[in-house]
């Protein structure tokens, strides 16, 4: 049985159904991401698990215990908020100690644990500082330490990095991963950033309109999007219809009417079992380490991604031959 199980969850806010018949299961020690656009219900799901939003129907089980009706304080879950939610009137040490104090842990043990966890997040010298004296990254570390120190069964992170600048965000993302691996905590990470989800997650749950649109490992979700929404949200796939695919490959041994093809799966050099298509580069955009070419072919326009090595042959107006393998074409389900 999974460590965290959600069965047929329905959650209503202000008379509007936000989550409908949602099912989800997570194994112990996994870091999973809830990925989706704003308003898809991912934060509401997190709040439902934590007890901050009451559940209309369905069941939430953690470690075999039904916590659906329990008050937040009895659920043994931790939560890290986007806005940190540190207590401004308490020092860093007292913020971290708050949850332990609520559990009536002895003072000596509290002191020791606080010192350890602050060292773990690299803030041992900030114990006596107030939250207002810390940077955004440091505040989020304190929020993380405060949630981890009480040893929650599941740690919920509601877009914890979205208020930080890109560099700090990347750094904290990796630190979070390291911490999760080290402590073996089960974490649910909410994000709308697919790169973030891909980087840190053991599994990704893509959400759309209050439901799970697809779940899988980052590779599964990326290489095999199951539907148009996931394909559109996860990557910049080339979308093809049945006629285009049949023109490319002749006959096709895949059912369906809509297909996607990753831009980096198309090659400029001959590949085994690949068909060739002649085209012209009509646009070229440099995306840092990747160069994206828009190629006009007789079957339509295709995006092609290549590692950016300053290749002159990828300049605009150049005639190119594309090589596409049928196995890279993924069928979408409606």
């Amino acid at each position: 049985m999974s460590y965290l199980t959600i069965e047929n969850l329905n959650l209503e806010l202000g008379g509007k159904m936000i989550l409908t018949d949602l099912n989800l299961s997570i194994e112990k020690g996994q870091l999973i991401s809830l990925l989706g656009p704003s308003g898809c219900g991912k934060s509401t799901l997190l709040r439902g698990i934590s007890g901050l939003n009451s559940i209309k129907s369905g069941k939430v089980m953690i470690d075999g215990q039904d916590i659906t009706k329990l008050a937040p304080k009895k659920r043994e879950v931790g939560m890290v908020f986007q806005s940190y939610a540190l207590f401004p009137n308490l020092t860093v040490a007292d913020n971290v100690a708050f949850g332990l104090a609520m559990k009536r842990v002895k003072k000596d043990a509290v002191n020791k644990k606080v010192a350890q966890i602050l060292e773990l997040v690299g803030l041992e010298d900030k114990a006596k500082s107030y939250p207002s004296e810390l940077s955004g990254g440091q505040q989020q570390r304190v929020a993380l330490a405060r949630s981890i120190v009480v040893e929650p069964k599941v740690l919920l992170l509601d877009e914890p990095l979205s208020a930080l600048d890109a560099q700090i965000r990347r750094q904290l993302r990796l630190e979070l991963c390291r911490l999760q691996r080290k402590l073996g905590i089960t974490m649910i990470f909410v994000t709308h950033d697919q790169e973030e989800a891909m980087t840190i997650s053991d599994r990704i749950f893509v959400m759309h309109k209050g439901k799970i649109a697809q779940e899988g490992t980052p590779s599964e979700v990326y290489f095999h999007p199951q539907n148009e929404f996931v394909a559109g949200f996860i990557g910049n796939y080339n979308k093809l219809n049945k006629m285009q695919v049949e023109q490319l490959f002749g006959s096709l041994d895949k059912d369906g009417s809509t297909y996607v093809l990753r831009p980096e799966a198309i090659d400029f050099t001959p590949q085994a079992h690949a068909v060739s298509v002649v085209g012209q580069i009509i646009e070229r955009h440099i995306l840092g380490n990747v160069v994206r070419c828009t190629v006009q072919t007789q079957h339509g326009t295709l995006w092609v991604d290549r590692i950016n090595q300053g290749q002159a042959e990828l300049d605009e107006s150049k005639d190119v031959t594309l090589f596409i393998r049928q196995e890279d074409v993924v069928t979408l389900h409606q």
Partner: protein
Amino acid sequence: MRNVNRLIISLFVAFMCLPILITLVYSFATEWGKSIFPSGYTFKWYLQLYKDPQFIAAILRSLLLTVVTLGAVLVILVPSIALVAIYLPKYDRFFKPTVLLPYAIPGVVLATGLMRTYTNGFVPLFAVLSGGLFIYSLPFMYQSVRSSLQEIDGARLMEAAEVLGASKVYAFIRILLPNIKIGIMVGSLLTFSAFFGEFQLTNMILGGDFETIRIYMLRVMKVNGHLSSSVVMTYLILLIMVSALIVKVTNINRKRIIVPHDEAALNSNVKRSPANELLNH
């Protein structure tokens, strides 16, 4: 431009301070009516005032009325504002116009309504007056506390405390209150000033049976202008002292209110513990 700025500021300061200055001078003047400057200066009005037991009694009555009503406001109104703001935000649209009603209802109307409803009942008139003043505090307290709650994102702090194991009451007392104390203090100050100097309701509901400082002031004004000025100055100084006291209390050094921790433990070079050691401790 700089001179214009100075002129505007000077006019403003003069507008604010001149009446107080003139009242102060008048309260020390032996006589001031037949010449530009007072004919002499004396402490006799203040001595006369402070020797009057009715003055001391009026101050004590005003303080009693103010403290009792403010206490009720703090105990009933502040949690109500927080409750609506955090847990029942959809009702805020009803709460907001309701708290502004005292601006719309003239004191005379409120006093008449209260008297018609309660004078022949079992409720003591002091309680009726206190209840009336309570209503007058709504706009001051609501605006101050609501702004503080928004500033600190009170809802999120309560949620964070609850997830960490705190009850709603504990989270309110230990986390929310200390972080909105500035708003509460500002609201209290405004309310205190309004209550302490309240005249209309007090005069109409209790009148001479409960002579507060403002009613005393009115009575003295008819007798002697110098004495009345000394009452005004005393009243002003008292308000300033109370305000200073409240501000002082507000700025008391932040105390650690959860778990006092041992500095040595925090500052010692604790060996980096493996994850399991930390979790299984």
